[in-house]
């Protein structure tokens, strides 16, 4: 009936993907017990490795379970554009936060000083 046959994912591929996903979950859980930042000596490595593992898992789900690898490219493109805009959203928000961080710190410090000044000395 269908003009073109839809791709049928082999069972072995599905189970291999599931195995990989579980293995990556175990890996990322195990990483919680290791201080990667200290181990490698660069601060902030840990969060990027963690996010990297999550992204590999997400890619496996999207490409194989969600069939994007054999789907029309346009559907994948929608997802990519969405992720692009999501990244813009997050990075602009973080840039803004970083921009004003000094001022916020200053504000908090001022508030603390003020509080101390207002506290009657014992």
């Amino acid at each position, binding site marked *: *009936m*269908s*003009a*073109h046959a*839809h791709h*049928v*994912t082999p*069972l072995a591929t*599905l*189970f291999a993907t*599931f195995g990989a*996903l*579980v293995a990556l*979950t*175990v890996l*990322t*859980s195990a*990483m*919680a017990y290791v201080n990667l930042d200290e181990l490698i000596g660069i601060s902030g490595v*840990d969060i990027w490795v*963690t*996010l990297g*593992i*999550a992204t590999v*898992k*997400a890619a496996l*789900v*999207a490409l*194989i*379970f*969600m*069939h994007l690898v054999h*789907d*029309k490219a346009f*559907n994948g493109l*929608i*997802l990519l*554009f*969405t992720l692009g*805009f*999501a990244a813009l*959203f*997050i990075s602009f*928000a*973080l840039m803004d936060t*970083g921009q004003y*961080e000094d001022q*916020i*710190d200053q504000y*908090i*410090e001022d*508030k*603390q*000083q*003020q*509080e*101390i000044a207002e*506290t*009657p000395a*014992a």
Partner: protein
Amino acid sequence: MATAEAIETGEQSTPGGHGHGDHDHPEWLAHHFDNADQQFDAGKLGIWLFLAQEVLFFTGLFVAYAVYRANHPEVFVGASKFLNPTLGALNTIVLLASSLAIAWAVRAAQRNEQKLMMWLHIFTLACAGLFMGVKVVEYSYKFDEGLYWAGSFAPTALVDGEGLNAQLPWVFVGSMLVGGLVMFGSWLMERFQSAAGVAIAAVGWTVMAYVFGSALAGTTVSGYHSSQVAAADAAALDAQNAAEAAEEAAAAPADGADAADAVVAEQDAELAAEKASKAAAASGRAASAIWSAGMVSFMTGVVTVLFTAVGCAAMYWFTTCFRGDRHAWGAVGLGLGGCIVGMAVGIVVARGVQLSTAHHGDDHAAHGDGHAGDHSSASHDSHAVGTSHEEAPHSEVGHSEDGHSEDEPQEKDSPGNAAPVAGFGATAATDGKPPVVEGAVTQGNFFSIYFAMTGVHALHIFAGIAVIAWIIGRIARGDFSPDFYGPVEFVGLYWHLVDLVWIYLFPLLYLIH
């Protein structure tokens, strides 16, 4: 099968109005499509656009997360210790297994393996139930430990045999009973097309409504009760502070005047202050307790009636949807009953994990970290001396436990009760007053974000359960074939997205260090 398409497309189909019989296209092909492929591709494009919207929607929550974490990394490290990574990992694997089942079910649809497709969907519902069961356990422990969202955040020690977590065994028994009743009723319905089946399933729904109603009422009311108690205590503190100010004023002129008089006046003022504060606290607590008891029964009743009504309405809707097809009915009941039984299993497993790891091990260590350890060293020092704000965020914990309740072991070594820190620990006026530091709100904010993200995700699980149940009914009715399985795949794609979101939530919330 015009109704089936009408559900899918939102089109109103009037029986006989279209004259379906005249067409030579299959009954599942909607009028406005030329052929099966066009219909399938249009549906898929639609679901992908919906998923794109979902991603952007969740991104809003991730932005909140990213901004707060960037501003207060230390709070996130501290607060995430209150979450149990084993439970997070368990739920991740449960969701991955359900994703595998759904992907496999699409394959089964393509290969016309009807029975397999059905059982894989029922398995998925059981996984969804298991996930929710684990969530129920996690949330009840959070509430018992006072780990609420910002504003209500007031950590307390877990008391054995008290609180929501003590009710979990009953929720387990209840869900097993309800799941069993729903499954049995559905089976009667399917096997004998018996009205008794509907009645039994309805009893199941009512029991479930009661269980959820009382749990919900208990949770919200006890949360409100504790906030009322906190408010009463705060009022008491205010009264005390006011009285102390008066006391000081009385003591001030004592320099010149009679010293003995001044001492008496001071003692009087002190007594008055104490009395006022105790009275304020006691009356506030008593009023709140009476109010809570009444409110719990009232809310339980209301929620029970509401849930029963919704349950029966849903059942009615399902019966009309699959009218005359008892197989469809039985299958839907089997799936939903399996989901509830899955929840019961999740509750038992998660409570076991919680008892074996968090309760007696890590979590108490985390408590030590979060409360006594940090705030005894940091809170008063940073408050009085005004050290840099890196130390300050922990001080809020000390404040939010303003109850100084006697039943909390770790409170014993808090500075409020312990020997005053040299020089400034003795001033009662500073004790309990909210220190103006950024940390006063941030730890609660972590839990605001935690509840918002996991809660919205849980709502998506509920929506998934509903649509998968619908698909199960259609599978049983024999709607799908290798030529027409669009709805199976589209619902599957939605379910995968729910899994995708959790893949990010798990490490970002549970595994921070």
